[in-house]
């Protein structure tokens, strides 16, 4: 009976206003009981829709299973009548989603939603189910489960909600758990906790897990086997360790090269895959990867490569798998993918070797930003301590990285440094002079020197402007160029960021995410700024595209001699691009160090916990040094050292006295009573 899930040649059509599109073509995989299978792919690869088809949820989204079979324990799902499919959902197959906040109904308590799920499948007294719900919450590691049952989703943190979501999924005792990017919306320390929980549950309950992720690190940590999807087709599949260490499809190879790992030398050019994943409406013929592939031959353009046997348990859909694998093995793949790009090994000056002598460009002195909230009729006035006493200095030509979990205040600090928000206390000095308050004439003039690259390349461009106008906007504000001169400059800029100068009259919606981020970069460098704030500039992009943008940023920095502040939650990206890194926690800077030094010898327990929770890192999994729980509310930050509530080595001293910055090496300081 128990044969797990079997998906054979599954094809899914989606009806859109533009006609019927094929989202997924002939994908096959199976999951044995107790196995974790990872579906890996970029946006548009069809991984989510494939997983929804397994529960027949595609029926509700204009999707149709156009061919193939889905069998669970021998039972066909694709043609099951609706009432039987409903019985299947939640009982034999359960699903957890990317956004735990959005997956719960905000007007019902957690308890009532869990009980409701259970009642969908069996008749039982409410009190019995209630008790079972409490047990489930306890099982997934939620403290005080009786209390949580009565709380509303808005009262729990993201990590807690994702645990509750898992508890809900477990309530039917499913054979298969589908987890669609379950940790993407969570902080890295919480992600580590959730992944660990999933693994532990799989072991003890013997479920199968279908894990969908874009993060190869997560896949490496969790998967028994991996299926790599590209543009709705399976590119490669096989045992996780083999796929990740000896990939046979050029796309997998490219993905692995794009992903930042600790092995890559800092400042080195990443071996990005060119171009971006195709959209559903304009799939290339033949092998769908051929426009981006270095091994593409006429054969690839004409005929679709079948999934062929590549050794025990391994399949790849490539006409040139042997060649590609050999190339990757010989590590000469980089030259093959981008033959025109020389291997730039130009050394970024590591750490501020001459920091003392070089001038300080931007300096923050005891910056504080408090947002008042509440204070309405009869409400107590409270304050969010977004940034709480941060001092730092960034030298000319330096790239300063800022990392921390969401809610640590890093974006607020970035905006304060540029004076896009005014501080509650403290000073910001630019070239030794205090930056003028917002809105004044002097302030507007300094905008020319201080530019910003935004996180969201979609939302930060006016949809009614063409990209020529968008890029020229700062030129209009700060220069007196004529229209023709502006056009010329925009053309130059477009080429500088790897786009075509003739694209000026196109509109933002015609570009992909990566291209839009290039547009954002062109706009930021248009008036030759001295300083650039990159606020999560690559976080929203696909892995393969992210590598391109990181390369571009580094090239530009080198060419233009820019100083920058690079804010990101992705630790590896920050390490790769920065000279020095500052770690923020709950509005305070807790450690500052040259980037290699920080990764090699983290001195603050929080930094060490952050590093060990990077999925797929050597420390992950067997590290005892993890942060418990989640980041506390910035409304009432803990007294003493703010990290003491989560710190494994906290003592009474930490609970009472706030640690001062101590030097733990050259250029390396940490705010901890017991630096590691």
């Amino acid at each position, binding site marked *: 009976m128990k044969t797990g899930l079997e998906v054979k040649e599954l094809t899914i059509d989606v009806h859109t206003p533009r*006609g019927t599109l094929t989202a997924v073509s002939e994908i096959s995989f199976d999951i044995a009981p107790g196995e974790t299978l990872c579906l890996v792919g970029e946006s548009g690869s069809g991984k989510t829709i494939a997983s929804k088809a397994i529960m027949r949820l595609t029926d509700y989204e204009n999707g149709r299973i156009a061919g193939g079979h889905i069998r669970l324990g021998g039972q066909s799902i694709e043609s099951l009548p609706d009432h039987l499919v409903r019985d299947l959902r939640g009982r034999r197959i359960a699903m957890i989603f990317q956004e735990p906040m959005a997956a719960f109904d905000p007007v019902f308590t957690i308890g009532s939603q869990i009980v409701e799920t259970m009642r969908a499948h069996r008749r039982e007294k409410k009190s019995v189910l209630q008790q079972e719900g409490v047990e489930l919450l306890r099982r997934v590691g939620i403290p005080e489960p009786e209390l949580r049952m009565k709380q509303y989703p808005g009262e729990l943190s993201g990590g807690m909600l994702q645990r509750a979501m898992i508890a809900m999924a477990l309530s039917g005792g499913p054979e298969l758990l589908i987890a669609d990017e379950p940790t993407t919306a969570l902080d890295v320390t919480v992600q580590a906790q959730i992944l660990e929980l999933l693994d532990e549950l799989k072991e003890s309950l013997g479920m199968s897990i279908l894990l969908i992720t874009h993060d190869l690190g997560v896949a490496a940590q969790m998967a028994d086997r991996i299926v790599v999807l590209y543009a709705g087709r399976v590119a490669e599949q096989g045992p996780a360790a083999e796929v990740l260490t000896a990939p046979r499809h050029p796309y997998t190879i490219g993905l692995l090269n794009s992903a930042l790992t600790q092995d890559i030398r800092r400042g080195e050019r990443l071996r990005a895959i060119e171009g971006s994943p195709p959209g559903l409406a304009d799939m290339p013929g033949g092998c769908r990867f051929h426009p981006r592939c270095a091994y593409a031959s006429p054969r690839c353009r004409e005929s679709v490569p079948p999934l062929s046997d590549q050794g025990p348990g391994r399949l790849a859909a490539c006409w040139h798998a042997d060649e590609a694998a050999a190339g990757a093995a010989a590590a000469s793949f980089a030259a093959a993918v981008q033959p025109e790009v020389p291997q730039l090994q130009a050394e970024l000056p590591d750490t501020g070797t001459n920091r003392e002598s070089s001038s300080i460009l931007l300096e923050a002195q005891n910056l504080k930003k408090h947002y008042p909230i509440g204070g309405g009729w009869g409400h107590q006035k409270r304050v969010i301590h977004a940034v709480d006493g941060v001092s730092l200095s960034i030298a000319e030509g330096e790239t300063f990285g800022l990392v921390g979990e969401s809610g640590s205040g890093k974006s607020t600090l970035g905006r304060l440094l540029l004076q896009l928000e005014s501080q509650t206390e403290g000073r910001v000095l630019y070239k030794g002079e205090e930056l003028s308050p917002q809105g004044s004439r002097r302030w507007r003039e300094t*905008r020319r020197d201080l530019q910003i690259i935004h996180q969201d390349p979609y*939302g930060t461009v*006016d949809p*009614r402007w063409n990209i020529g106008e968008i890029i020229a*906007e700062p030129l209009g504000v700060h220069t007196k160029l004529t229209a023709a001169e502006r056009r010329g400059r925009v053309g130059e800029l477009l080429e500088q960021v790897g786009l075509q100068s003739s694209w000026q009259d196109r*509109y933002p919606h015609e570009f992909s995410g990566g291209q839009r981020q290039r547009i954002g970069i062109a706009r930021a460098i248009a008036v030759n700024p001295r300083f650039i704030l990159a606020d999560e500039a690559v976080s929203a992009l696909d892995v393969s595209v992210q590598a391109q943008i990181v390369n571009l940023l580094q090239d530009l920095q080198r060419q233009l001699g820019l100083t920058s502040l690079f804010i990101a939650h992705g630790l590896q990206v920050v390490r790769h691009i920065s000279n020095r890194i500052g770690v923020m926690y709950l509005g305070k800077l807790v450690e500052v160090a040259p980037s290699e030094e920080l990764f090699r010898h983290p001195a603050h327990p929080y930094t060490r916990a952050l590093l060990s929770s990077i999925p797929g890192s050597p420390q992950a999994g067997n590290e005892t040094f993890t942060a418990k729980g989640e980041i506390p509310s910035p409304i009432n930050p803990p007294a003493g050292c703010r990290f003491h509530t989560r710190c494994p080595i906290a003592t009474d001293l930490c609970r009472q006295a706030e640690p001062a910055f101590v030097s733990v090496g050259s250029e390396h300081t940490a705010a901890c009573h017991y630096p590691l």
Partner: protein
Amino acid sequence: MKHSAAAAKTSGRLRRIRKAGLDKAPYGAQHRTSGTRLRFGSADVLTGVAGIAVSFLVLCALIPGWIAPYSPTEMNTAAILQAPSVLHLLGTDYFGRDVFSLIVYGTRDSLLIGICSVLVGVLIGGTLGSLAGYVGGKLDTVLMRLMDVLLTVPGILLALTIAAALGPGLRNIVLAIAISSVPGYARVMRGQIMAIRRRGYIFASRAIGARPSSILIRHVLPNSAAPLLVMATLGLGSSILAGAGLSFLGLGVLKEIPDWGALLSQGRGYLTVAWWICTFPGLAITLFVLSVNLIGDRWRDAVDPKRKGKV
């Protein structure tokens, strides 16, 4: 994907149909494309018909004498309350006047009342709403409470009061209707501006040092205007009707040639014996409003860059 889905939802069926037709035939969808191509044509034909209708009505307003078969003041006592026939296309009224000619001659005042009051209302309401939404703070509170006060009085009652205070006449009726429509436009504009003001590209513009006034004019207003345009095209109809109501109460344009609204209210008493007297002026209003809506919808699509570039 996300953008087009959201846009399609708001823009209604017409656009979706046309968009489907404009697109290249996706593979494996032959049976669908043939169907959509047909409907794509009909949507375009509809806009064409709307264009012809509006042009005709504008001609009626400009040169009624060339179009109407009879004089609007000519009372044919031999043909009172006659049903539509070859002689009197849309019948005659209780004075023996030709209804078709009355409608043709009434076009001018009706269109004037409708268009002018909408323009004035949008201008005042849009400006106040923009100010309240963009400046915010105390100005917002004061302006919006004022609008709330105006909103508590039913629109027609407000127009009535204003018209009564100002006295009858075309200009006063336009002003009365415009003022009564101001709070609606102001509220919509304010909400729109407040939403757009928080968009990323406004922050991005601020970050490069653009002046607040230039941000308002170049980014915020163009992106906020669409809902107001829709509201304005819909407002045309209700303005004409409001004008009719005022005329009916003797506060309208006191001329021997009634506008559509006056015709409508005058014919109401004869509805049981002569349905044609108020039916056809009503249809004229419907025709005008519907046509303007169709053209407005098409025009909004044409200026939306998101649809311009799509193949």
